[in-house]
């Protein structure tokens, strides 16, 4: 043997110390990058950068109040106009001002000075806080407070619910300073203290969501440990010797160090929400190692099973296993990396991190493992491991089961199986075509429907305009303009007109708000409080003065939800009752029509659609719509090319791709039947499903190729025997691999408080399971009918078979 693989194996095993040194040096290098590793969820990075809505969001991140926490205090029995509730609200407001990194200028509740009412007095207009310097302490003060509330319409809409049972405390945090976890835990503790028999407290807002995610990401560390323990346990049960357990652990750990170290050096943060993929890789690494180790012991036993034979056995194993291993790993890499096609920054970072992790499985899972096996003492149960010992009952039952499955794919039963497969496939493809894009839940899809956060969102949405906003932005063309664009007649009139159009159009929002509302209110108050002064003269001076009237004596930050910090850009906020897809579609259609009426290009500004939760949900839907199939097609093309290269046959590529694509269709069909739409999760899972699933096909196809070349008899007999034999041997390996991956993933589904992670786990388990079944049934069936010619010619590239004579100068002649 003088192939490149053989020469590399020979060199590595001949220079074991040097090879170890090289591995050690690389590991030290990457380990030095570990302290720089950052695990963080950057929510904006989960959005597609090329979507116009996302671009509006990124240009105006403050609209939609992403740094605001909303705390709703709800009275179970009665209304908020009682001493206890008002005192609670006062205390919550004071306490939240002590939250870490809160912006002290941006705290709002019915108890703050910002919630004011106005009275016309002989001297002018008297603006006073709704609440005096203490919470109302008796019936008279409560009555006076209530009277004042009735004269403050904005307070009624945004701070006290229509049924008078709820009130909201809002606090905005400083972006550069906020530690989401810390702020979240602080506000949570306030809420816990405020809850009692008659008071519920709900917390929502983006910082709260991030806080929950962070809390659950710590939980993920625990799940990670459980998963590792399970994997190691499964390994120990299967191998039943120390070396067999240690080898995969050492190689997998090394790959992990390299992967984490690389992103540390590249200064790329890791998205914890996608940590399930590295876990999947660890499981893959384990199963690769197990197969490699088993093959090693087979060679080792064939060479004589003496300690001195370890090095030669390792060399031979490395030579024969390298090509199929590399091919299998490369398909994994492709499945992970191909999601980079979608312009979502978190996906790109994930692709670099996990894609390179998969790449590192090549040197560690092929080279390093050979070194370890050549060095570590061989176990005592080699005979059992190589199948020469007594097989346990479980193994026999598995083999019988696999034999039964094999029988479905050849002979007379093949016709029936084919009919069933064709019918089921047609149904699956038809059903999958019905699936909808988007997977909306009220609140966030990151957390479970019953999570405290989603319950809070539903409660707040039920009592107040809520959190589902669509923002239409009036973006100044010259942000440096000395005349503040938001203070102009054109801006005022455009905002007003947009609000009118949306409110009077079909599917109107439940509330609208813009800077124009504050201007009208200011104009009315300064003119004595008569509602007839709610309209402003269309003169620049009149509009600018109304703006000044509303902002004087107040921080501009108090208006940051409607006007940006420079007073140039502004937004029209539209609140919707939910984020169901039909609501989203109707809202965006109405907004598009309204913008067409007012025109998107004005002298000093342009009207941009759109930001807010409604727009961003639509942006995610659109990226999935655009890229879901692009990702799959690109992946198919790459894998086809690789298979053509490996088997020197186009037919081989097509045969291998049919089951994995069918598996994908089946998964989508199942999702549709379960009422789940396509989302980011399903895009990632589909790609990984194809990339990892193709491995099963490669294992099985290679084995069938090897078997067919050793069988005799009629054509039918030969193919039937080859399929039967391949399923009983490699089918077992496939079962093991799939089981290991399910063991690796299942705790994530069962234990994670993050629905996003659990969903991804469930989808991965499902696709791996479907892939396995289709690989064991459909692939042999296709081979049975096609009987490809490439299978009949020797193919040393992907073959795991070895003629030991070639390595031992004829001293050992076994073929294994």
């Amino acid at each position, binding site marked *: 043997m003088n192939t490149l693989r053989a020469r590399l194996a020979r060199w590595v095993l001949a220079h074991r110390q040097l090879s170890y040194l090289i591995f050690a040096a690389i590991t030290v290098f990457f380990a030095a990058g570990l302290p720089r590793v950052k695990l963080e969820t950057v929510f904006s990075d989960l959005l597609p950068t090329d979507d116009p809505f996302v671009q509006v969001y990124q240009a105006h991140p403050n609209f939609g109040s992403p740094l605001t926490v909303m705390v709703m205090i709800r009275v179970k029995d009665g209304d908020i106009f009682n001493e206890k509730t008002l005192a609670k609200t006062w205390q919550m407001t004071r306490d939240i001002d002590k939250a870490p990194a809160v912006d002290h200028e941006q705290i709002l509740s019915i*108890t703050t000075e910002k919630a004011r009412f106005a009275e016309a007095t002989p001297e002018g207009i*008297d603006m006073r806080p709704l609440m005096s310097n203490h919470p109302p302490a008796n019936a008279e003060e409560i009555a006076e407070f209530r009277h004042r509330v009735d004269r403050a319409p904005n307070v009624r809409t945004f701070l006290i619910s229509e049924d008078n049972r709820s009130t909201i405390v809002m606090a905005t945090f400083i972006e550069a*300073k906020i530690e989401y976890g810390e702020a979240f835990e602080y506000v949570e503790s306030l809420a816990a203290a405020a809850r009692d028999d008659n008071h519920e407290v709900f917390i929502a807002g983006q910082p709260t969501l991030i806080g929950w995610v962070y809390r659950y990401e710590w939980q993920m560390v625990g799940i990670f440990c459980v998963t590792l323990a399970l994997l190691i346990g499964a390994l120990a049960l299967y191998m039943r010797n120390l070396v067999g357990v240690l080898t995969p652990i050492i190689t997998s750990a090394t790959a992990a160090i390299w992967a984490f170290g690389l992103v540390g050096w590249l200064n790329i943060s890791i998205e914890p929400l996608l940590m399930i993929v590295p876990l999947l890789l660890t499981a893959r690494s384990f199963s690769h190692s197990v197969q490699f180790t088993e093959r090693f012991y087979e060679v080792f036993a064939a060479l004589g099973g003496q300690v001195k034979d370890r090095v030669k056995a390792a060399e031979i194993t490395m030579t024969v296993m390298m090509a199929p291993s590399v091919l299998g790993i490369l398909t994994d890499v492709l499945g992970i990396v191909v999601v980079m096609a979608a312009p979502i920054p978190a996906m790109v970072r994930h692709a670099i991190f996990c894609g390179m992790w998969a790449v590192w499985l090549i040197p560690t899972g092929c080279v390093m493992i050979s070194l370890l096996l050549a060095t570590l003492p061989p176990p005592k149960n080699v005979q059992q491991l190589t199948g020469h010992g007594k097989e346990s009952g479980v193994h026999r039952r598995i083999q019988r089961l696999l034999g039964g499955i094999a029988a479905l794919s050849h002979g007379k039963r093949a016709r029936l199986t084919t009919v069933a497969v064709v019918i089921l496939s047609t149904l699956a493809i038809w059903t999958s075509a019905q699936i909808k894009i988007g997977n909306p839940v009220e609140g966030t899809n990151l957390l479970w429907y019953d999570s405290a956060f989603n319950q809070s969102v539903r409660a707040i949405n039920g009592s107040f305009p809520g959190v589902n906003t669509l923002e239409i932005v009036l973006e100044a063309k010259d942000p440096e303009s000395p005349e503040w664009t938001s203070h102009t007649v054109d801006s005022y009139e455009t905002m007003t007109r947009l609000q009118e159009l949306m409110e009077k159009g079909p599917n109107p929002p439940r509330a609208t708000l813009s800077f124009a509302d504050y201007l009208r209110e200011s104009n009315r108050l300064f003119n004595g409080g008569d509602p007839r002064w709610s309209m402003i003269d269309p003169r620049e001076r009149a509009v600018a003065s109304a703006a000044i009237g509303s902002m004087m*004596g107040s921080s501009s930050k108090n208006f940051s939800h409607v006007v940006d910090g420079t007073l140039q850009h502004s937004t029209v906020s539209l609140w919707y009752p939910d984020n169901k897809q039909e609501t989203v579609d109707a809202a965006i259609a109405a907004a598009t029509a309204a913008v067409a009426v007012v025109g998107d290009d004005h002298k000093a500004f342009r009207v941009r659609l759109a930001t807010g939760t409604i727009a961003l949900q639509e942006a995610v839907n659109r990226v999935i719509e655009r890229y879901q199939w692009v990702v799959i097609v690109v992946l198919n093309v790459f894998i086809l090319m690789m298979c053509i290269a490996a088997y020197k046959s186009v037919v081989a590529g097509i045969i291998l791709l049919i089951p994995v694509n069918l598996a994908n269709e089946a998964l989508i069909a199942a999702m549709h039947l379960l009422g789940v739409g396509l989302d980011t999760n399903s895009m990632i899972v589909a790609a990984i499903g194809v990339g990892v699933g193709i491995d099963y096909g490669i294992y099985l196809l290679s084995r069938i190729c090897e078997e067919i070349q050793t069988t005799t008899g009629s054509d039918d007999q030969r193919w039937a025997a080859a399929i039967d034999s391949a399923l009983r041997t490699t089918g077992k390996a496939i079962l093991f691999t799939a089981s290991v991956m399910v063991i690796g993933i299942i705790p994530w589904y069962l234990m994670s408080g993050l629905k996003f992670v659990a969903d991804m786990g469930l989808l991965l388990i499902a696709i791996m399971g479907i892939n396995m079944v289709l690989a064991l049934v459909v692939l042999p069936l296709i081979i049975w009918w096609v009987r490809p010619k490439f299978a009949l010619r020797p193919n040393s590239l992907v073959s795991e078979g070895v003629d030991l004579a070639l390595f031992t100068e004829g001293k050992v002649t076994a073929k294994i």
Partner: protein
Amino acid sequence: MRITRYDRGYSRRKFLSDAARGALGTGVLMSLSDAIAANGEISKAYPEELLSIEGYTKGKVKTGDIIDASNVEFVKDLLEPVRYEQILKQGRKLKIGKTTTDIMRLSPWDYIEATVRNAGKAGFDAKGNVVNKADGQPWIGGNPFPEPANGLELFAAQTLNWGRHDASFYAMKLYAVDQSGDVRFRYSGGWCEFSPVARVTMEPKPYWPQNKGKLRFQSVFFLEPQAYRGTSFLNIWDYDHSTFPALYGYVPEFRRIRQFPSDQRFEPLIPGLTLFLSDAWAAGDPLYTWGNYKVVGRGPFLAGLADGWASDHPNWEHKTHGGPKGNTFWDATVELVPEAVIVEAEPVKFPRAPIGKKRVYFDARNQIVIGMVTYDRNGKPYRSFDGAYSVYDQGGKKFMDGKHPYWSWAHVTSSDIQTNSVTRLEQVRTLEGVYQSGANEQKYYDQYLTQAALQRLGAV
């Protein structure tokens, strides 16, 4: 030969032990007031290491040097933590000037003379108001407590007269700089403060009879940006040190005065600024709306006291440096203040204040405010104020206030430390050739301090 008892450690030990005892006898070698009374100089009250930066740093920093990130460690103990951080991390620089020892350059001439003349005559009446002990009437002029015994007396003097003139008009420009170094807002306008009591320069003295019950009239109006032109605020302070001032706002278009909540003093007057009414002169609220005044520290300090006037610019405008875009901080000269007294106070009458406490740095020589740091309710630094005063007599150029060179503030830097935004203020000579900085003019009242005046200003 030096007397070893008066080495640097001696000064430090004395400051520490006095602060620990709450004692407020100023001066290290002798009583500061005795030294000033003797010859108007402070040199005899302090050892050499407190009179020059060379002495303090043992020659590591010299007069004329620039303090920046490379040498700030030598003077770290002379700075409040915020300026230290800004120098270390945000490119702020301070030029070191010579310590002023002539006390007459540290306040308006008439104010100093009245302080000496009226020494010992002030006391608190039953309501806690500062009065002339002889007749129980409002204070008669100058610093009522030139030898303060506690933090309350320091604050009482500061609250009584901010600018140390009977009346002041400051033409000023304001710049709000955000954390990225962009100047987000530019304002110009006038600030007027006017004392109807404790007058030492303007007739009638010491009281303006028809407003003897008032402590101060104060207004601020804006000329730029155009949208804000004519927008103004008027504060009218009662002499009673516990009563909140009335606060009015005026927008020309509406031709109506708007009254604001009198205790709403922790909101910026106009958008973008990091300045609250409460921050004015570190004593923007009535004396007893804050409480628990206590001396919490004493020691040398770096502050701009006599050389802040930008006489080389025809309109007294200052240059800037530092921050991400070179325009976050004023170019400033500071000098070694031999002794600063740090007084802490809490906003006891503001149940909704976002402030937990403030620490104000007073120059022991003349009890003028030279710095302030406010803290949020968690005790974390929130906002910081520093600035520069000046005698307007520099390199042969003079700007006169009566018979003597004008004395006033020159520039102020207000930093919101939590959001890293900075507001810069400077006093300029004139705005639009009409509104000129100056002091002690009776006409200011009619020009700037009545509701009719606000309406007239709005019409320009």
